[in-house]
């Protein structure tokens, strides 16, 4: 079976500095895959390659179609929602306007309304703050807004870049619970970049560990968690 997302010997970098030195990975339909590694290993660059935020060579395919030479807008329109580092909240706009930007490409009006209801069920705080400027939200609420907005895009694949960054442990738990729910009830595949390796391995079925731009270890998350040596040397717990 062909994977939903396939990276094939991807090399990428910024200007003269190359960050990824030939990375191959795949995410199956409906799967949660985590991407782990130290700071600067190339996790964010991997996600940015997929949505065309950085120049890359090699090949990246999404449900069999090469993403080479597609603009970011077109990649996103294929069905990939990318919640970037820093969450990508438009702070000049209201919470509601941010959400509408998630659904603005969809033509299925009735389903969109249902998705809004569901999103507000997951994150009631967003309903309360609908009319407020997104800049008034706390870090956790902004992360919720970013995930909610990605969900409203009704993607087949979600790229999440460190959803736990800077958040209180309780909030992180809540957000990961919802990521799991989204994955299970909608069958949305998730490619998850995380610093918090333990949390990421618990939620994912497959995992890759990057080390300075190369895949150092990969395999089933439960195997990685179980291997003392992998945990010690790469995951730091």
């Amino acid at each position, binding site marked *: 079976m062909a994977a939903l997302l396939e990276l094939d010997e991807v090399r990428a970098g910024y200007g003269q500095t190359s960050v990824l030195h030939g990375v191959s990975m795949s995410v199956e339909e409906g799967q949660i895959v985590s991407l782990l590694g130290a700071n600067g290993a190339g996790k964010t660059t991997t996600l940015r390659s997929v949505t065309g935020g950085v120049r890359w060579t090699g090949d990246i395919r999404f449900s069999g179609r090469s993403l080479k030479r597609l603009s970011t807008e077109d990649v*996103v329109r294929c069905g990939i929602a990318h919640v*970037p580092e820093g969450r990508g*909240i438009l702070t000049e706009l209201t919470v509601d306007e941010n959400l509408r930007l998630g659904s603005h490409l969809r033509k299925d009006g009735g389903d969109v309304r249902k998705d809004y209801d569901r999103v507000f069920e997951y994150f009631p705080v967003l309903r309360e703050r609908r009319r407020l400027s997104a800049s008034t939200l706390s870090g956790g609420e902004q992360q919720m807004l970013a995930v909610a907005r990605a969900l409203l895009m009704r993607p087949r694949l979600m790229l999440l870049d460190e959803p736990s960054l800077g958040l209180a442990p309780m909030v992180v738990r809540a957000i990961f619970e919802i990521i799991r729910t989204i994955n299970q009830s909608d069958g949305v595949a998730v490619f998850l970049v995380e610093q918090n390796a333990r949390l990421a391995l618990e939620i994912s079925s497959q995992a890759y560990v990057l080390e300075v731009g190369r895949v150092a270890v990969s395999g089933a998350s439960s195997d990685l968690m179980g291997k003392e040596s992998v945990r010690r040397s790469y995951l730091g717990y």
Partner: protein
Amino acid sequence: MQSLLQQIISGIASGGIFASLALALVLIYNAMGLVNFAQGELAMFATFIAFTLIDRGLSYWIALPVALVIAFAGGVLIQRVVIRPVERAPVLTLVIITLGMATLVNGLAGFIWGYVPRSFPSPFSARTVNLLGAFVSYQDMGVIAVSAVVLLLIYLLLQRTTIGLTMRAAAHHPEAARLLGVRVSWMLALGWGLAAAVGAVSGILVAPVLFLEPNMMQAIIIYAFAAAVLGGIESPLGAVVGGLIVGVTVNLAGAYLPFVGGDLELAVALAIIIGVLLVRPNGLFGRASVRRV
């Protein structure tokens, strides 16, 4: 008292004209982080197009929308052809390009239509009507009405429609907007088109008063700068409020301060610019640009 009211109303009329051009400046500023120095010249050029259409026998109320559509298309075209290739260039490059465009458009208008001032027809009569004791011309009221309608339409477009929402998203956070599937580059082109059209409104409204010639907008653009700066260069609402304040202030200063008279009105606008930059650099509606690092 009546004459004060009279001065205020005619100030609001010029304010509407300044507000339209100031709004054009703000739209471009939001799209590329830079004032378009050619905005006034583009407005003048569009006014000449309206003039030609009317000259060929079209009615004013047909020529106006046609000229605005042409201005819109011209704005989009300029963004695609001239600005887009240098999108990532340093600010100074873009400044020089817009300055060069101003000179070019000015010269082109002179080449096509000549430098002899022409009278531009107004659909509103110069007769006055007694309003609460003040004598207000139909001309002023017409200008106020047209600019109010145009500004309202732009407001509704930006605030109430999906395309307006994506335009604002593209202007404020291009990277985040792209990740939401917004075609940022086209949205910026739309912003240019909209700016060119709303700027053209100011040219067409002011032409009956000033006479039409290639340098017609060179004073108006200074007032528009003052209005945009006063409103806080990033705020469309600020541009409108700023335009009205500048219009009324300049008119009152010209009427009641003997040393200002008609000659130093432009200096009042410049004084407003300097004053705002000294006292409140973010303007009335601007936000302090604090960046988290």
